[in-house]
């Protein structure tokens, strides 16, 4: 497996942080109900601990934000990072001298 795509504990923690922040802001602004936050928390806890690659993470966040749009920025952010990672891998390969 391409190690650049593996989810490290730090990345997982960062996503938890972003999701909890999105949830709290939505609750504070009454854009989400307590029940919705509980349901989305249930999905987050069931899925986020088991994703192992960046691709899986992006798919999970896409599904999550499709159900609760307040998580959309977290998904977009992860997708952007995913693209950046892929581009940087390609650039690295291009930069390799031909052997």
């Amino acid at each position: 497996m391409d190690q650049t795509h593996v989810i490290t504990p730090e990345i997982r923690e960062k996503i938890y942080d972003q999701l909890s922040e999105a949830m709290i802001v939505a609750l504070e602004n009454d854009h989400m109900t307590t029940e919705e936050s509980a349901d989305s928390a249930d999905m987050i806890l069931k899925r986020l601990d088991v994703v192992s690659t960046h691709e899986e993470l992006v798919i999970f966040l896409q599904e999550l934000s499709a159900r609760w749009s307040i998580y959309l920025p977290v998904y977009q952010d992860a997708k952007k990072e995913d693209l950046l990672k892929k581009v940087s891998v390609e650039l690295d390969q291009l930069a390799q001298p031909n052997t």
Partner: protein
Amino acid sequence: MADAPIAVTASEALTMHEGRPHGNFLALPETVRTNVEQGRRLRDLKAKDVPARDVIVEARREKDVRVDPKQVNDMIAQFGGGYTKLDGENVIMDDDKTKDLSPEDQSRLTESFSSGEKALKEVAAYLTYAQTLQEANATGRSYQEIYDRENPGAKVTWDQLRANALDALLTTGLLERIEPSFIGQSDVIKRDFIETALASDPKLRMRVAQEMRRIEDELTNLPKVQENEKQATAVAQKELADKEKEQRITEYHAHLQAIGVDLPRDTLVTLIDRGLTPDNIFQAIRRTYIEGDADLSRLDELDAIIPEFNAIRDKVEGKDPGKVNPELQKRYDALRSRKEELETLTKDMEYKDDKKQRLKDIKSAIDKDSDVGKILRVATQAHLASKAAEREVAIAKATTNERQTLSYRLRKEGDLRAEIENILNNAMVDVLAERSSEVHGLKTKEQAEKEAEAEKTRTKEDEEAQKKVKEGMERNWISADRRDRKRTIDKEQIGRDMRMIAYEGEDGIKRLMLRDMGVGNWETADLGSLPDDVKRQLEAAHGKYGDTYRDTLMKDYFIARAAGGRGGGELKLKDHEWELLNSHFSTALEKGLKDSEAAQRVMEDLKKKGIVPSNSLKWLLYVLLGVGTVAAVAAGAAYAAGPASGIGAKGALAGLLPH
């Protein structure tokens, strides 16, 4: 280097945030939070460096206390072997799926389904009831209004639901076990007590909902009642083959009868069941019905001769005898002689044409290549297929995994149903015990802080003795293992110690303390002649913990009674033992009750009704209302629970009395 953040758990942070552990012995119901309040609460957690994942866990907690109708239906659908279907909003047994089962199995499935459904609906009714209570208490709206809003079009009225839920709590018998004075009391009194003191506690609802969620998982993972696939296929094949066999035998038998062959059907079946081939059966029929009949036998022989005779005749008749092959001539002569003989014999045969037709029919019926003959061949093939399928069934049965059988599944359903039936009772006992330990924990923590200064001056020996006594209180009667959160109740010990303090009063408490301190002859020692150092340590420990010790024992006693189960006999105190207990501790009891406004109200109401509270009921009030030294902190909250829980000015335990 920056300071590492101090990680605390969400519950610890909440405790810090709210300044008290969750709930007291009679806790104020937690309010239903608005979305914004919930946001702020989670924000506070993050501010206290609680890991983000734990914040999300805390957010999910709200889900733990909700059990929706769909979830309940999903659980119900697992009972009855899962042979169920949705009929509108109700789950019912699916007869189409069970029609092939034996009547006994059908009955077992239906019984398991019905009892599972009943148990689940009872718990679900409690959860709806508790949710309504909680929200009404939090918002100040009426129960009816909340119930109608949350359950539009409900078939059950609020009053019915409330009565059912309280009945479910009442039938646990918990109340009578805690306090025998409730035995024989009217249900109104008992319902009011339960609603005020227990049912509205959010912790009870949460615990019940969590148990439901756990059992839901177990129900979902029950082994499926799927007949072994091979077995099911073989059974189907056998059924098909048997049907084909029966059908063909009937058809063939009917044909035989039509042509006058009176072969009983049973005989035909027996021949086939014995594994005879069609050729064997044809031969048997030939022997019986052609060879056994002289006319038919001769006709048959004649039929057999004529083709050969005709073929030879052209080569023999009208030819020069000297040129005919002698062997051929010999054969011709023999055939002609036999033919003439047969023709003479059959000349007078009655209904000759009929006989000829009958012979033709029988021969056709036993011709393996004729349409009729083929019917018997199909019947015997079906018989072989049926036998082969039967062997498959036997093999499949012998190798079927026990987990997949109906009996295993039903046994498991029974186990889970028993757990569901005990959810309410166990949750109530847990909540009572939890309230007690929290109050106790809070008090000892406060005491520890207040006495931090004084402790400096105490001797090390005194501190050690007190520590042992304190540990004894936490371990002697009800001990809890923090790791697996299991609680152990030593009913025998509780009963013995209660008797000790009933008979010996304060001296009894001192003896128990001596035991905790590790003094060998604690039961018989002359307390007045103890060694000076032991005496000093005992007096210090008794001075500090004497009342707490008694009240803790008393509380644990009531919790042990609430827990029910085996070994309850040791707990029973005789009337005169309660009298003794009162005579020794009447000052503490009376003062405690007198100082408590809530207790006074209950006592006055009891007096007005002409009821003299039993000694054990007084002690129960003392413990439940938190008027003793240990639970004193809960007194305010206990009484405050009255107005907040919707009972109004009558007070929390004034609901004990009929209104």
